[in-house]
């Protein structure tokens, strides 16, 4: 998959009660990212917690999941 550009957090949550596939990941931050290039997608935020409106940058796809981090 291609790299994604930067975006803004449209909404987010931190998941504590996971589906079976992700029992080892909790807690993890899930977010819908509004991409600056248009469109939204659901991905994860790694590192410091991001809130609605925070700018984020794309890191990488891991197993098809887009990971972002909050801009410093």
């Amino acid at each position, binding site marked *: 998959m291609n790299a994604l550009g930067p975006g803004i957090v449209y*909404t987010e949550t931190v998941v*504590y009660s996971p*589906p079976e596939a992700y029992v080892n990941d909790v807690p993890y931050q899930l977010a*819908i990212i509004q991409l600056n290039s248009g469109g939204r997608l659901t991905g994860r935020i790694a590192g410091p917690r991001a809130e609605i409106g925070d700018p984020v940058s794309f890191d990488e796809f891991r197993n098809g*999941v887009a990971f972002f981090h909050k801009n410093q």
Partner: protein
Amino acid sequence: MRQVAVVGIGKTAFGAFPDRDLRSLAVEAGQKALENGRAEHSQVEAFYLGNFAGPSFVGQNHLAPYVASAIGIAGVPATRFEAACASSGAAFFHAVSAVAAGLYDVVLVAGVEKMTSQTTPKVTEILAGAGDLCGEVRAGATFPALFAMIARRHMYQYGTTRQHMAAVAVKNHGNGAKNPLAHMRKVITMEQALNGKPIAEPLTVYDCSLISDGAAAVLIAPLERAAEFTDKPVRVLGIAQTSDYVALDEKDDITTLRAVRTSSEKAYKMAGLGPRDIQFAEIHDCFTIAEIIAIEDLGFVEKGQGGPYTLAGKTCIQGELPINTSGGLKAKGHPVGATGVGQICDVVQQIRGEAGERQVSRNKIGLAQNLGGSGATSVVSILGAA
């Protein structure tokens, strides 16, 4: 189109029943509805079954004829409807449509789910199958997480608070405590509701509906034949089912459930009524935020006012618009495939004046709102005294 009436209702208790299988629950509800409607098995012309995930929860497929034959109505067309948590709402919509069109007269509609034989992570995974597996679910979305993200955005745009959501939980637990068929008959305090174990921030365990086993059924017939079955027929005044995107990230505005708006507009139009005419409602409170958003999208209050309206006590049994007198999915329980028809049973019970200490005084026109997924299916039914 012909007028359609609900002429019989039947429910199992909702709860965790390790000794009961899916079929026995559905059969119990179906038999009760037939008895309640004083109907012979031979009078039933079709069977509509709502069930979300029997094949995943218990491994059984081909559920509608499996249940129909056990009820004693083998031979009739028997079909399962799957629309996530709106499965039996959808079954009810299609059954009413068929009777209204004159295809059948007497139809049994049931909903059932057997969920508690699986672990919570497994149930969470099966339920997530109602989301988009290629996108949000792969990223780690669960249903609590999807509604948590809806809640966050609603809080951000409208100033909805944790207290507003907790008020939904406190009210519905209070109502459920008075419902003999409810899964959790436990009153909770605002303090408890605000300090529950986190599930997906900002939602705690008190914001989430229950994992339950249970079944519900209704018998429907043309209004002109209703007197053959009951002294208290309840008319379907308006009903509509609509759909929307499955994935949350494909919706323009996640603080509103578009399918709830479109289905309610259609149902109001069919009934010749508006939101102000509704006297009480059973709302799909799969999460506390869902009740807040639904009462906004149904037009009961302005957008953003669902939380303050609830916190002010307006939706209590004694309030101006009682919501979820059954205890809702939060306390009555949420055997997902049974929920839609269960709501119809609860509304009918109120209209008949059979709700006991939960009885509302203005009980002539009630609404049931059944939601699938994060809003991809919505069924709204408006029922009234015949």
